[in-house]
């Protein structure tokens, strides 16, 4: 039985992942901003079979709450061995181009707050000598594109930080999985036209659970994104600048 802290637990990807863990009988501790949503998700996971579901209303941007969240989760579950960091916002690129304060807020939410929590969780798991951290980054972090480079650069920070942390902590029994979803059909993306590249949160969840179980390093989900991003990363800059991606 795992003892899992899920941050951003009301996001569609986190919730779908939590359902798999609940059905397996893992203990869960959920943190999210919106209280009524958080309680609905907790009730659902209890009904689905999670032997324990704790909750804490939590704003990831309040960095001074990160230590107490880790403590609360550890105490409530009688230990902590897995952390899923899944909070985030979908930045409005157009607004971020003219509103610098907004851009910095987005980078704080999607980048800085994530690496802050990852670092703290990593120390705690390393001190006990085992555990796993799964962090939701994005294919958008692989290369900055004009359509979403504010969000993308925050995710690039997450990916690079996770890569270094993985290398260091792998020697101390802790493994770090970077999850890179492509387009996911969630309430956050409800206003987008969906095409063949869109995946359901359940698919992403299955890949996350599998990535944690198998100790994978970087998980593109669905897997075809590894190929798409390989191509995008290798487009020479003089061509890339002319594209409208």
């Amino acid at each position, binding site marked *: 039985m795992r003892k899992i802290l899920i941050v951003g637990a009301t996001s569609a990807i986190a919730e779908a992942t939590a359902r798999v863990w609940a059905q397996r009988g893992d203990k869960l501790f959920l943190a999210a901003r919106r209280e009524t949503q958080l309680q*609905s998700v907790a009730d*659902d996971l209890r*009904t*689905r079979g999670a032997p324990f579901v704790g909750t804490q209303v939590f704003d990831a941007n309040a960095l001074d709450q990160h230590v107490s969240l880790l403590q609360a989760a550890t105490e409530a579950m009688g230990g902590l061995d897995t952390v899923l960091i899944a909070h985030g916002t979908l930045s409005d690129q157009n607004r971020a181009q003219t509103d610098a304060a907004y851009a910095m807020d987005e980078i704080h939410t999607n980048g800085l707050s994530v690496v802050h929590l990852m670092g703290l969780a990593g120390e705690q798991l390393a001190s006990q000598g085992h555990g796993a951290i799964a962090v939701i980054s994005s294919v958008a972090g692989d290369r900055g594109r004009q359509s979403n480079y504010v969000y993308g650069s925050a995710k690039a920070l997450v990916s690079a930080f996770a890569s270094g942390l993985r290398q260091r902590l792998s020697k101390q029994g802790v493994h770090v999985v970077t999850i890179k979803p492509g387009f996911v059909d969630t*309430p956050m993306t*409800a*206003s987008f036209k969906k095409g063949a590249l869109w995946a359901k949160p359940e698919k992403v969840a299955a890949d996350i659970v599998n990535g944690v179980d198998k100790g994978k390093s970087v998980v593109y989900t669905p897997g075809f994104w590894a190929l798409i991003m390989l191509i995008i990363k290798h487009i020479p800059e003089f061509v890339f600048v002319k594209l409208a991606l």
Partner: protein
Amino acid sequence: MAVTSSYTSWGRVLRPEHELLPLASRHAALPALPDGSATMLPYGNGRSYGDSNLNPGGALLPGRQLDRFIAFDPSTGVLRCEAGVLLSEILRLVVPQGWFLPVTPGTQFVTVGGAIANDVHGKNHHVAGSFGNHVRCFELLRSDGIRRVCSLTEHADWFAATVGGLGLTGLITWAEVQLRRVANPFMVTESIRFRSLEEFFELSAASEADHEYTVSWIDCAFGGKRLGRGLFNRGNHAPAAMETAWVPRGLAQGGDPHTRTVPITPPLSLVNSLSLKSFNTLYFHKQRRDVVSGMQHYRPFFYPLDALLEWNRIYGPRGFYQYQCAIPPERALKATRALLEAISASGMGSFLAVLKQFGAPASHGMLSFPMPGTTLALDFPNQGPRLHKLFEALDRIVLEAGGRLYPAKDGRMGAALFKAGYPRWSEFTSYVDPRFSSGFWRRVMEQA
């Protein structure tokens, strides 16, 4: 920002554009209607066949987004969940804990909201009534923001309007259902061959006391002497004290069903009169003996079609219709025979002709479909005007016999037939949410 996408129902005849209004949570108010859309309609899992779950030119509320369990008490079998939870998810949760759905339609891929809005029936109607008979309460959210918890005692009028209310009275956000006990996932079943309609009625009468579930397949491809032949299936949940040797091998674990999907829509309907006749003959002679008994997992017993996901695609791009009627007992034999004769003479019948006796338990909904008598359901590939002429002939038989058609299966009945079959329609209209409508509703409310 509004998005439109095309939505269709199980019959795939229409695929109109709709605006989609996401549902953030069961606690949130209904989304505002975008400019230009006069009305909205909840859409469950799209298993209704016609246009009662479509709102062409308007907006849809994707009911599946409310898919959380709220509470389940394994000591009483009371389950509370959001309205977008699928019956398949409920079974997955409760069967291992010794509970089962009190009533289930022939597919497990419907939502709780859809099951209430059509007050669906199953093979146990003669003992259990329809789905709404087991709904303890639900919350109804109206476009004016008012929420009502409805039950037989609280807001009983809203309860009666919303059970079988075709999604028109507001959005059901959550519901509480009383489940029934089972000892295990298995069914003790019997399949009996019959050669005439009279035999079907005799078998029904003889089976109802001792069998919770009864349903028949009836052959519609042939007229004359072979008219009315079929297979009568009956069953019960297996008892607790069961010889384990009975359990068919490979079923004991009850893993997920093997499912296959029809991956593409063939350019033509694969269902034509030739394939029909051979299928029906095969089915009828599938069993050698007149009575075959056995033990089955509940899935193949209740949901034989679910093993082939999206089987509706075999009817090709023009889609298909289902025609399901209910006929009161006094006229049942005569009218059923007349219907079967008209169908076999037309050569357009389907291999999915299902015949079942409804029983006495009264449904709670103003517009609930089930009533004491006989129900017949058939699929027809969409063949345009030729088929609609047949439907009109069938309508006349149903009307004359004092029967009604099932809105969940309907994409074409006229206002007169609807109003004759559902005498409480005008009482119902005062409960319709002014911001809600459907293609079906606009059609049957037209002045004749």
